[in-house]
């Protein structure tokens, strides 16, 4: 414990010295650092902060130092997180490499694969995207049809993916492809990595109801990929895919937490204060029904945050994320959706503007417009990473031990 306290003191001092002042303020969406070959730093402090943290491996505090990670124990990384929270430091880097791919590579890739990819994730040099869903394979992901056929020492990949988040901005893709066409659907899938700059890869952004285009359609036309880029055993990609989905759910469940990335400085951060200010209330929110709904939301939100903590403590005693990741994903997403519905109720028509037609934002402020867009964006939370309903199926089957109706349906078809 003594060591931990001295670690805390050192960490606190280091953060004080190295975290730029502007990195201690709420983070607008356009200042989130995703890294990559074409990384943009709207705020130059973001680059300074990223490089300093990456030098210590603290963009990925618990990853092994051997691959550029921080090499911290779980306890030390919690201290680091607490100290960052204390000064409201922004996360220096947000990426699918960190939240999804990295943990799976560390667990399942070869030493050479780790050496090649992990340090670039840690430093934010390569931005990854996820090639999972296809037009015909959504909730039934294992029904995917993108083909990889061996030709010499390369795979030739043909097919298309959809809902590929930020594919147009990503450098590399981790992708599920079918490598055995005779085997049952779960047994013929492989997990492969390749460069999005490879000839034959094209992407097309999809415009969403929020007006933004975070998702793409991605097409592969005779893309040639070295056979050594398969992670894990050939045709055993489904095991990796599921493992990665658990990490993805854990990440998405973080949307429900009222801290870190969700502290955007928007109207949804402090719903009660927002509701009071738009009504001119002092001391007590005058709309009793809304007050009750906000209280209920906040209680659930605090209880959810405690549950995330408890789940992490339990995971420490077992290994990695468990079936509760489905529960956390669902609850976090529903909370985020509730948060934005309440933000709309709190701010009335001021949270329903689409864009500003004035130079000074006197019609709608940037915060108000961001709330509108985020409200629309939040509707996707319960679809991406496995729908709300699919997660309920997973809980029913894995946690509660109830019979699997979907496999009954599948076996009836055969």
């Amino acid at each position, binding site marked *: 414990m003594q060591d931990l306290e001295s670690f805390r003191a050192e960490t606190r001092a280091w953060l004080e010295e190295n975290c730029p002042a502007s990195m201690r303020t709420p983070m607008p969406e356009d200042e989130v650092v995703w890294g990559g070959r074409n990384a943009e730093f709207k705020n130059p402090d973001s680059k300074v902060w990223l490089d300093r943290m990456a030098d210590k491996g603290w963009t990925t505090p618990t990853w092994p130092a051997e691959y550029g990670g921080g090499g911290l124990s779980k306890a030390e990384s919690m201290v680091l997180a607490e100290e960052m929270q204390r000064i409201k430091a922004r996360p220096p880097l947000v990426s699918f490499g960190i939240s999804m791919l990295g943990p799976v590579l560390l667990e399942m890739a070869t030493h050479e694969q780790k050496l090649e990819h992990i340090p670039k994730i840690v430093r934010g040099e390569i931005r990854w995207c996820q090639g999972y869903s296809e037009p015909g394979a959504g909730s039934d992901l294992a029904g995917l049809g993108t083909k990889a056929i061996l030709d010499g020492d390369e795979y030739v990949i043909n097919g298309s993916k959809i809902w590929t988040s930020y594919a147009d901005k990503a450098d590399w893709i981790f992708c599920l492809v079918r490598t055995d066409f005779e085997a049952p659907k779960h047994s013929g899938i492989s997990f492969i990595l390749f460069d999005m700059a490879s000839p034959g890869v094209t992407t097309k952004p999809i415009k969403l109801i929020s007006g933004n285009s975070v998702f793409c359609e991605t097409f592969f036309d005779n893309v040639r990929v070295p056979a050594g880029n398969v992670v894990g055993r050939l045709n055993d990609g489904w095991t990796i895919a599921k493992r990665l989905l658990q990490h993805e759910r854990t990440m998405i469940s973080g949307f429900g937490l009222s801290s870190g990335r969700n502290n955007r400085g928007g109207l949804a951060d402090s719903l*009660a204060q927002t509701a009071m200010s738009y009504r001119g209330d002092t001391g007590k929110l005058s709309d009793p029904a809304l007050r009750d709904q906000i*209280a209920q939301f*906040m209680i659930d939100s605090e209880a959810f945050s*405690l549950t995330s903590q408890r789940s992490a*403590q*339990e995971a420490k005693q077992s290994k990695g994320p468990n079936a509760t990741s489905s529960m956390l994903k669902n609850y976090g997403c529903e909370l985020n959706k509730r948060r934005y519905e309440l933000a709309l109720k709190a701010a009335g028509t001021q949270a329903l503007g689409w864009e500003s037609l004035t130079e000074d934002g006197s019609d709608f402020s940037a915060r108000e417009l961001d709330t509108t867009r985020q409200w629309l964006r939040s509707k996707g939370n319960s679809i991406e990473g496995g729908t709300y309903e699919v997660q309920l*199926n997973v809980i*029913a089957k894995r946690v*509660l031990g109830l*019979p699997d109706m979907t496999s009954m349906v599948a076996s009836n078809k055969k």
Partner: protein
Amino acid sequence: MSLVLNEDQLMLQESARDFCREKATVAVLRKLRDEKDPRGFSDELWQAMVGLGWAGMAIPEAYGGFEFGYSGLGIVLEETGRTLVPTPLVSTVLLGATAINLAGSEEQKSELLPKVAAGETVIAFALEEGALHNPSNIALGAEKTADGYTLNGDKVFVLDAHVADYFIVVARSSDPADSNDGISLFVVDAATPGISVQRLNMVDNRNAGNVRFDNVKVPADALMGAEGQGRAALERTLDIGRIGLAAEMLGGVQEVFERIVDYLQQRTQFGVQIGAFQALQHRAAIMYSEIELCRSLVRKALLELDRGDDAEDIPALASMCKAKLSEVYELVSNEGIQMHGGIGMTDEFDIGFFIKRARVAQQTLGDASYHRDRYASLRGF
């Protein structure tokens, strides 16, 4: 601070669970009800629980307790919530002993706390004056006399009133317009002339009664703490009571849920287990998620209580616990009947006992809307 139970706590949980499943079952409650038991609980079982240390769980060692903390008491309450066995745990151990420990004089503590820990006394907490929890509206009067106080007024829904040896009475000793808010706590011998108890037959078959205080003369040393300044101790007692009650409710919620899942796996219709139907699976999965949140809240609140003077945010945690558990017990107890179908409606089947206990526990010390309102005020809106 770990939200996961430690070794000692796991052992306590296991032994409490074994005891309740073997001896303190729902059948005990059924028998007490059917035989119209005059005491309303089994003294023999209670003494066995006392033997296991349950009555002294949160009482300091100096007063004959075991100092296992509120986390320990919470574990015991949770297990008794699974089998619904009536005991004086809530009235005497959770509320009575807590109030005495917080507000009592050295003499009051030395006299009463060892008796509680030894299972030798039942203490009833006389607070409510109306159908809804409202600790800010106390009318029962305490008038100062030459050698003590005279109490006049009515209390309702006092847990274990008709078997109580002592009452802790929440009274008004001066007008709230005075410098303090005028609430005083008294510990009163139940045999004092002028006290009359009307037993209530509640839907959950647990002991409660209405108590009339008609010119009840109590000595000066019946007062707990300073006159007119009982509010702080009262509020803390109530918060501890709410958290403990939430722990009991958590036990009931989990028990009903486990019985539901068992039934979904056993019952077949249309040639399959009904647990294969998504309409039921999804509702079960939603309940599971809500229960996980309940577990975290109760655990956190109990941990904080055990931090003593360092405890933080207890009022809000108490309201969060009581609001959330009230909501979720309502949900799960309703689903308990619906998912069991016709058999869930029969008296012969146990599930009905849980919905009855759920509703009484929901109302006790404030329901969900009371506590959401209180939480909003505490959080500044």
